[in-house]
């Protein structure tokens, strides 16, 4: 058995990428988020140099071409230059966010960076100190690449070890654009030893064994849904297969928790429970700052109080300020009130009173999604019209349920004498 090769598999760096779904009003948080993709890139480069790997593969989406971020492209060039100085070659394929026809700041990458062509699958051989490995790759020609690029990968018979680098959606992964679609069978048919994939932001190994197929995930979570560890893989590959170690690179951790308020007697209890939850998140963040989204649930006595105008906002401000005082800080991005009133809806539903009529009407709407969507669309139409593409139509069922609870809160609340 000859020498193994060690390399780092990264993808979806999305330098200077727009964050979605976060409202960072604190300057520290804003700065950390804006810098986070760059810090994650630094972490990848640091890991390559510190671990003295043989090479680095990047499976697409190093940056978002359409954002035309000069800074991103120059930062990427500087990072590649660092690796060139460390004599670590890079094998790079473009993805849907940085396709070959995407906007370029006109910078040139070092010669040690091998950029795979978008016209055909290319083969490049790495050799050093007795280790040898063929790296195959292909870039996206355009953003909406619908061709099954995996089928163009064919291992050469002379390859001792072979690595495939591709930005693709294997098996139509939900929640992601179905670009360069392929199947697991397509990948197996190429007979690569290791598939270094990009596109899916969650790191995962689709399968291991004779061939390992892995998504590196993004190096930095980009929205509140991208919780958990984010980073890259260090892969040691030889004829016996691949052994992978995950390296966390995210500069800011995204987290989401659910807090059941069924036992909360008042806002103070909610405050205390949220503070405890923030501390737990900070402890689990391993010294890195975190952006936290909280969902309050449960049929709770405090639902009515939370539903009062300004109460949830004030609570969010207080919890947010306290969590930001910690080290590392935790930014409570949003507290979603999904609690339900403590009233017994079934009991109301059975009554002949006004509230019963209202509950029954809501039930009817919830049972009729079309009607619910129509009424919600009609009511929010002016806002959506003004908001254009910036706004997504809210889930009608959620709106109906929230409106029902709000109406009941107001109707059944004791009038201030």
């Amino acid at each position, binding site marked *: 058995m000859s020498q193994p090769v060690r390399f780092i598999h990264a993808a979806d760096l999305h330098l*200077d*990428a*727009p*964050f*979605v*779904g*976060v*409202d*960072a*009003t604190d300057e520290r948080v*804003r700065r950390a988020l*804006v*810098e986070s993709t760059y810090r994650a890139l630094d972490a990848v480069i640091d890991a390559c140099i510190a671990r003295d790997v043989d090479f680095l593969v990047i499976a697409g989406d190093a940056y978002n071409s359409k*954002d*035309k*971020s*000069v*800074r991103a492209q*120059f930062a990427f060039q500087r990072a590649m230059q660092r690796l060139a100085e460390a004599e670590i070659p890079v094998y790079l394929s473009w993805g849907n966010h940085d396709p070959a026809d995407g*906007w370029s*700041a*006109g910078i040139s990458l070092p010669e040690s960076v091998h950029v795979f062509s978008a016209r055909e699958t290319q083969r490049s051989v790495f050799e050093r100190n007795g280790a040898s490995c063929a790296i195959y790759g292909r870039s996206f020609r355009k953003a909406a690449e619908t061709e099954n690029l995996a089928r163009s990968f064919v291992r050469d018979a002379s390859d001792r070890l072979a690595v495939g680098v591709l930005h693709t959606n294997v098996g139509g992964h939900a929640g992601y654009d179905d670009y360069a679609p392929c199947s697991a069978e397509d990948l197996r048919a190429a007979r690569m030893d290791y598939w270094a994939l990009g596109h899916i932001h969650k790191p995962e190994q689709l399968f291991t064994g004779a061939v390992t197929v892995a998504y590196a995930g993004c190096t930095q979570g980009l929205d509140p849904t991208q919780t958990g560890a984010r980073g890259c893989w260090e892969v040691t590959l030889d004829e016996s297969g691949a052994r992978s170690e995950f390296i966390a690179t995210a500069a800011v951790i995204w987290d989401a928790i659910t807090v059941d308020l069924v036992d909360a007697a008042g806002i103070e209890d909610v405050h205390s429970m949220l503070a405890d939850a923030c501390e737990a998140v900070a402890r689990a963040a391993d010294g890195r700052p975190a952006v936290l989204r909280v969902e309050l649930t449960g049929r709770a006595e405090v639902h009515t109080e939370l539903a009062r105008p300004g109460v949830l906002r004030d609570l969010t401000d207080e919890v947010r300020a306290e969590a930001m005082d910690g080290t590392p800080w935790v930014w409570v991005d*949003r507290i979603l009130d999904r609690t339900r009133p403590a009233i017994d809806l079934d009991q109301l539903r059975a009554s*002949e*009173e*006004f*509230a*019963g*009529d*209202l509950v029954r*009407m*809501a039930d009817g*709407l919830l049972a009729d999604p079309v009607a619910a969507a129509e*009424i*919600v669309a009609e*009511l*929010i139409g*002016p*806002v*959506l019209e*003004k*908001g254009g593409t*910036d*706004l*997504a139509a*809210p889930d009608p069922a*959620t*709106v*109906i349920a*929230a*409106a*029902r609870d*709000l*109406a009941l809160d*107001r*109707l*059944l*609340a*004791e*009038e201030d004498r």
Partner: protein
Amino acid sequence: MRLRRIEAVRFGRLNDATLGDLGDGLTVVEGPNEAGKSTFTALVRHVLYGFPTAREKERSYHTAAGKRQGRLLFEDEGSRWVVERTEGPHGGPVEVHALDGVARPAILDEVCAGVSPLAFKVVFGFGLDEMAHIESLRGSDDDIIARLYAASAGLMVSPHDVRTTLDKEAEDLFTARGKTKRANVLLGEIRETRTALRSLEEEAASFVADRARLTELDESLAEARASRDEHRSAYSEVGRAAERLAERIERIEALEQELVGLRAELKTALEARETTAPDERILSALPELEALIEDASAHAQGRTDLRDAESALAQAQRRLSDAVAKSGRSTEQLLAIDAGPEAAGAIDAARNDLNRMEVELDNRGRELERAQMNAAENSKYVIAARRNAGIDGPGDPREMLAERYAALEALEAGRPAAGSPGGLDAPALVLLVSGIVAVVAGLSLTEYVAVGIGVVLMAAGVFFVLRRRASAGRVEDAPAAALDVLDLSVAPTGMELARIRRLLDACRSALATDDDATRGVAEATRELDLARSTLSARMTLWDRWLDFAGLGAGITPTDASHTLGVVREALNLKVAVDDAAETVERLRARLDSYACKLAGVLGRFTEVVSEPCEDDVPLLVGKARQASADARKALAAREDSERLAGELSTRISVAEQKAAHAKEDATVILQRWSVSDGDSLEAIAERERLTLEDAERAHDTLADERSRLDERLAERTREARGGELRLELSGLTERLQQTAEEYAVLRTAARMIGVTQERYERERQPEVVRGAQEVFRCITGDRYVGLTVPIAGGAVEVFDARAEARTSEQLSRGTAEQMYLALRLGLIGQLDDIGRGLPVLMDDVLVNFDPERRRGSAEAIARLADRRQVVLFTCHPETAELFASVRPDVTRITLDRC
């Protein structure tokens, strides 16, 4: 629960007035005008809800008797409570007292639950004034019907109010044409952020072009820099040439001017040299003259030395004369005396001998005096000793002493030996022993009498012993001759013999000492005589030596030494005189020589005395100095002129060479630039300067543009504004999304309430309205059969049998009031648990009804009284009778006018 009694402690015109007991159902309170019916009605409301403050537009019922105060007595299942309110802040404090039964501090809240003060005023405690309010407040925040309707619908608040609030809250978030609402603001901010992002992206889009432009600028800048450098070099060269030419021309002019001056100075210097020639005679004698002038100070010193030498000579001569005079001899005699060391040695030896001999003589004399004094002293001791020994009479004391010794020895020979047995006295011993025994026994036996006796005995014994011992040793058979010799009359005791012997021994010793002193005197006398003769012999020898030495006899060695000193001084002074005389002679000769020499030199070129004396020397020296100085000055002037002329010649030569070189350089420059003069060259330099400025401007313009562009490009590679804007956009979008969802929920909630309300009105309102409609139909005797009350507000309409609708404005006052009464009765009839403890107080509300409808109304009110407590105030007896006829069990209370 029923209101049983109303007590006005102080309220309006009512003081300590009570209204009660009220019945469980219908109570008719009959009283004339000003009996306090309205006042009682108002009192109930104010005790329940608080006294109105001055700011409220309502009759206040103030009283001069003090703070307003009232009580309501409630009864519930046999227990009674008093609610008392006194005027004060916030409506006045309330006290609840349980008259019997358990404490019920919250009874007021229970009674009033669900009924606001306004609702009570309009629906529960009303008069004609409030009749129309039930409709006039429709659609407002005080829509009583809506509120009571909500309460009857199982709600705590009016759905209409809730819906209004929700719509208002939604409108606070967004309006279609708003700008300041939250969503509208966010939309505006999103637009601005997008614009900024687009601008940034456009800048980024131009990045490549800018980089290309940067490359172009680099090339253009290199060309411009080369052009600038070329022109700068050319300008520098021509500029330097022009400057050099100008400098040369200027230098030539300056040199020519300098030459004119130098030549004039040379001419002056040469003329001056001719006019300052010195006297050659003086110049030839000048070295000697200056040497003599230099010796002038030595000559002056010589004169001083001469005077000092002459003074020293005179002084030495005086001292020699003094020394000779002091010796008393002539100079020759004095100087003839040998004052050598041998003479001095002889004098010193003689002086020592004589001094020593004189001292010896003095010592011997003093020894003799001491021997004589000792002998005289011993003689005094001898006399005393002889007297003590008794031999001071005439005769040889030594013989007398021997005689006495013999007598003494004789007496001593006859004296008994000391300590013989006969010395003891037995009786005395007995007494003594007896005394001791008695004392011892007495002390032992404590018998003090025996002790006393013992002491007496002991004293007697001691006395006798002592007396015996005193008479012991006396010579018993002393020879008389011996006694006579010793001048004794009785035989002496031993002690007396011993004393006589001591005296004799002392006398013998004194006599021996006296003999020794006498011998000492004789010896001292002999020694003195010997010393005296020795001194005399030495004196004789001294005199002989003096004579030999020529010093004259009879003088002491000291005098002789002094004389020798004088001789030596005289000799020294003689030598000093001789030396001083020689010095004077030598100095005088030197001075004379100098004067002659000086006069000789001066005489070569001036008139001077041929044989100058000493006093002429200063004048001669002065002349010599003047002549020397003049000569030197003339000589120096001539040298200066010659040197100046030389220098000027040199400078003229150098200046001429420089001018030639400068002309040569200027010619070369003019030839190099092919011009004939400096102005032409200046013109060329100016043209080059302008060209260079153009080149520099072009270069700087390009450099500035490149620098700005480079900085902008570098800034773009660093700037994080794009990321910040995208993050800002994310935040704004997130906030807008939340706001939109909030808006959707509010709007949907309002819509759902509205739909539910509409449905409820349609399906369930008849329960409320039907009650009012039925009451109204009964009151009007089926004149009107229908009644609609839109819950969201709007006019109430009534329908007659032909379904013709009329609003309240289209009805007569009486009919309208009947409709209002019907609405109240219908509403209250539906309020099962709302305000259950509240009585319905009506103040003469039937006055405008015709008899038929009044009866209908009375029947409707009586039916309400079956479920609620009703108190009807009236000033019309017929109305009271009407109710009594309708409801025979009515409780009737009569009030008198206050």
